Structure formats: structure tokens, C-alpha cells
């Protein structure tokens, strides 16, 4: 850390920064050639637009994650949207009751491909401590899930870790996955066309 004095106050600049490796490719003057899915993955993962589907306590930890102390916006999730048509990642945070299940499914169906789902918290992953008649035992009963973040509630660091795993999935996903037979079979299991 280098120290300076600026207008009488000590200022510290962080000069210990880490640069990320570019994807493997051929470089020349004024051009960089690589595979399409590398570039697309890089672009998508660093600009995910999450839809916070916050229902209960995990929603408050999400608010803490978005706030300045734990700042999710560092990872590209600056713009949280509430319209499913415009978002890539739905973060389901909190208990989903059976009354809420159809609502969640409808919101998921309204999202455009490619879409990812993150189940934050024990209740969204498996029903949590609420093994009762009114709680859906995990959102994977109604929609396919990509990443599960355990915890009750998970610490903001855990939510960020889940988000980083989503970013890994996004970066490494094949561009043909959404039209392929495996994905269609997965959706068919949930009754989604």
C-alpha cells in the first residue's frame, strides 16, 4: 500500500492489484482472436443482472450483501432488476411456501434464456427447518436450480461465493446448451416447454 498526503489528509492507494488472465487466444496488433464462447462467457459472467426473489430472512442478508460493506456490485451485479424479462439470474432467497410456488414458477417461466437459478438459504434449497404442511421442500420441486447456497441465513460471503460459482457456470457454458436435448429433457421433467 503506498501512502500519500493529499490536501493534508493521508490517502492510501491499493497498488497490490491482481490482474485476470485473458482467455487463450492469438494476439496481434489491434486484434485478439479467441473462441466465441470464451468471449461470450466472459461478457455474460461479468454483467449478470440478478433478480432478487427475496421472501424472508435471507432477503435481509441479501440486502446486506448489496450494501456497501459486502458489495455484490463488484462482481458485475450492479443492476438488480425486478422484471424477469430483463434478468439473467434469479436468486431465490427465503422460504417458498406452497402458496408462493406457482408465483415462483410463473416468474421463472417469464425469464428469457439463458437463465440461471440460485437457491440461497436452507429453505430455498430443501425446505430448511420448516418441514411442515405449508412449505415447499426446496424450490427444485418446481424449477431447475443451478447453485445451492446453504446457510440459515448464509453469510454475505457465502452468497458471494455462490454468485462466483454461478459466474463459473456462466463462463464455461456451451453456447449450444440451451437448445440441446439434455437441457430440454431437464425442462421437460419440470413440465416446462
Amino acid at each position: 500500500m503506498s501512502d500519500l498526503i493529499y490536501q493534508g489528509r493521508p490517502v492510501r492507494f491499493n497498488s497490490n492489484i491482481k490482474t485476470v488472465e485473458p482467455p487463450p487466444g492469438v494476439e496481434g496488433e489491434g486484434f485478439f482472436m479467441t473462441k466465441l464462447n470464451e468471449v461470450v462467457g466472459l461478457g455474460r459472467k461479468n454483467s449478470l443482472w440478478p433478480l432478487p426473489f427475496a421472501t424472508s430472512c435471507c432477503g435481509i442478508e441479501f440486502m446486506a450483501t448489496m450494501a456497501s460493506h459486502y458489495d455484490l456490485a463488484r462482481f458485475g451485479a450492479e443492476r438488480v432488476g425486478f422484471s424477469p424479462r430483463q434478468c439473467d439470474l434469479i436468486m431465490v432467497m427465503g422460504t417458498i411456501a406452497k402458496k408462493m410456488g406457482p408465483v415462483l414458477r410463473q416468474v421463472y417461466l417469464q425469464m428469457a434464456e439463458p437463465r440461471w437459478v440460485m437457491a440461497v438459504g436452507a429453505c430455498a434449497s430443501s425446505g430448511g427447518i420448516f418441514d411442515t404442511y405449508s412449505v415447499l421442500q426446496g424450490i427444485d420441486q418446481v424449477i431447475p436450480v443451478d447453485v445451492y447456497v446453504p446457510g440459515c441465513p448464509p453469510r454475505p460471503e457465502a452468497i458471494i461465493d455462490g454468485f462466483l460459482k454461478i459466474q463459473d457456470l456462466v463462463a464455461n457454458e456451451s453456447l449450444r446448451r440451451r437448445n440441446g436435448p439434455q437441457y430440454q429433457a431437464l425442462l421437460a421433467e419440470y413440465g416446462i416447454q
Partner: protein
Amino acid sequence: MSEQSVVHHLPLPEGSIQKQTTTINLGPTHPATHGVFQNVLELDGEVIVNTEQTVGYIHRAFEKLAERRPLYQVTPITDRLNYCSSPLNNMGWHMTAEKLLGIQTPKRVDYLRVIIMELARISDHLICNSIVGVDTGAFTGFLYVMQYRELIYEIYEEVCGSRLTTNIGRIGGFERNFNDTAFQKLEKFLKEYPGVQQEFENLFNRNRIFMERTQGSGAISAERALAYSFTGPNLRAAGVDYDVRVAKPYSSYEDFEFDIPVGTTGDNYDRFMVRNQEMWQSMRIIEQAYRKVQDFKGAEAEVFHADVPEYYLPEKKDVYTKMEALIWHFKIIMGEIDIPKGEVYHSIEAANGELGFYLISDGGRTPYRLHFRRPCFIYYQAYPELTRGGMLSDAIVTMSSLNLIAGELDA
């Protein structure tokens, strides 16, 4: 409250441009609803003619769940009621259990509980007020104030280990004594927070845009508020100074000196101001409690729980060396302690109002019936009356200034 159950497209009077009202669905997922509840609004242009609420989108059957669990296992459920201020719910439940069991907690435990409860109250009011700011368009207050909520979370972590759903305390006291780091963080909070609160108020209290947005909308008179069984800051904003901490003091609140801020019109601005003033009063209480705790010296300063071997786990070193401690440990963990028969109703002043616990025990190992008197559930009924005749955007601000927490609404 609407007299018919489901009536949409109400006819509008003669001479209106539209023949019937527009029906709009707000929720259950909506950026403005902080939690999941649904409002179906009947609008005449932008003026609200009627609303209808649907709740239950996060009904988790707490009351049925509590019938399955021994007393100390009910505490994590109470966490999830008003999850912005879990310690308040936990303490209220422990006090209910102690009332039924006839346990008297030592003074130091009471004062430590007061510190934690008032911190929780501040943390809840911070969320409510900063979200009212966000709903009127001011995001800065929320980001600024969340940093101090993180400091409150750190204080909870020193005592119980977790931030949000704390499960703090035990029946009879606390699980561990407050260590020096907890007190250091508390001192840091006491030193820095008044400045932050002052800046937050400077941003909003006399801000012309904020005042014009919130004054006059969502008003309720004191008589109607009492008829709807309002409690807490919403009732105090309407002018009635009912506070359970003064009416029926618990946990040695009678030893503290504090005021009860009261509003006049019960509109959104008054609710905002009452919550701000309550935060100042909470700071006063915490300072007094902290000084009182510092006054305990020597052996008294090590007291952090009452002596109730049947409900409070003995220390591990005793479990390994003494026979009685081993037996109590076994009985408590295996859930073989019978609760005495009885019926008790205990209430505390939670952040939203009077949170009541109605506990009936028939002598078994788990409660026979546990009912939570949830303030949010009760005052949300008045939402049609609060919003009728107002604009759509005022309805949004009213919803957030009422501090509706979905966990407490549905239980």
C-alpha cells in the same frame, strides 16, 4: 375492511371518464413489497378506491411447529418472526418461558438483555426508515446506515455467533458472558452512532421533497388505530402513548429513564419521525444499561444466567466431572424435562408493537399450544383504510412506513 370478499371493477360515479375502476395487482413479488404479500388495488386513475390484501405467501406453520419442540428449541422459530430484530423475539420468548417456569433472572442478566433488545430495536428501525427513504427515491440513506447495522451484527456475533437469526440467549440468561470485544464494539457503536443518526436525520427530516411525499398520506386517527388494535410506533404516531415497556415492565425496564415519542396525525411522516426518536431513546437506554453493567464488579460481573439446572445446560467441565451436571445435561439434550402445567400470556414491546406469546402447557415436554400475537398481522388489516382516497405512490410509501415484515405477518 372491505365488506364484500372479491369485488373487482367497481362502478365509478356518473361523469367519470372511465366507467369502472382499473384493477391492478401489486405483488406478491414486487420491488415495493418488502416481503411477500399481495395487494389488489382498485384505481380510479391514480386514486385508490379500494384495496384487498392476500397474505400467507410465507406461511411456515410456526404454531404447529412449536407443538413439536421442547422450549429451548422454539427459540430458533421465534427468530424468524420479525427477522430484522431477531433478538427481541428471542428475549420475549425466553421471558415467557421464564414466567411459566417461575424463574427470576439476576439483574445483570436483565441489563444485558436490555442492551441486546435495544440494539435490535435500533437495527429494525434503521431498516424501516432507510427503506422508506428508498421508496421515496433516496438510496443514500440506506447504504450509509447499513454500515452501522453491520456493527450491530458484529456485537451479536460476539455473544451468540450469528448475525441475523440469532437464537441469542437461553432460558435463564445468556449462553456466554459478554467478552471484552463485545463491550469494545458496543462502546464504538455508542460513540459513532449518534453522529450517523444525526446525518441520517439531516438528510430526511426537513427535506422538502420527503416531507411533501410523506405528510398527509396514510393517516389514521387514534380512535381508529385503537379499534384496529394497532400497537407500537404506528399507534404512537397516531397519538396514543401505549408502550409495553412502561405499561407492564419486564426485564428491569423500570430501572431505566426514557421517553416515549408520540406523533399527532398518524401519517407516514409521523411514523418516520417516531421511529427516529425511538432510536435516540434506545441509545439513551443502552448507555444507561451499559453503565449499570459496568457497575457490577468481581464475582457479580461473572453472572450471566440464572441458576436453573433443569433448563440451562451446565458447563462442560461440570458435565465431565459431576454426576448431577451429567444427569441434567442428558435430560435437557434428550428433551426429557417436563414443563409444569399452566397457561401464560406474556408480551414485549417488539420493534413493531406488542409481540405476545400465549403459551399453554399441559405438563408434557413440548407446549400444548403456542400462539404468537403478531403486531404486523393485526395492523395490516387497516391498510385499505389507510390508503383509500390516496394516490398509488402514497400507497407504496404507506406500505413501507408501516414496517410490514412478511415473517411476522404470516408466521
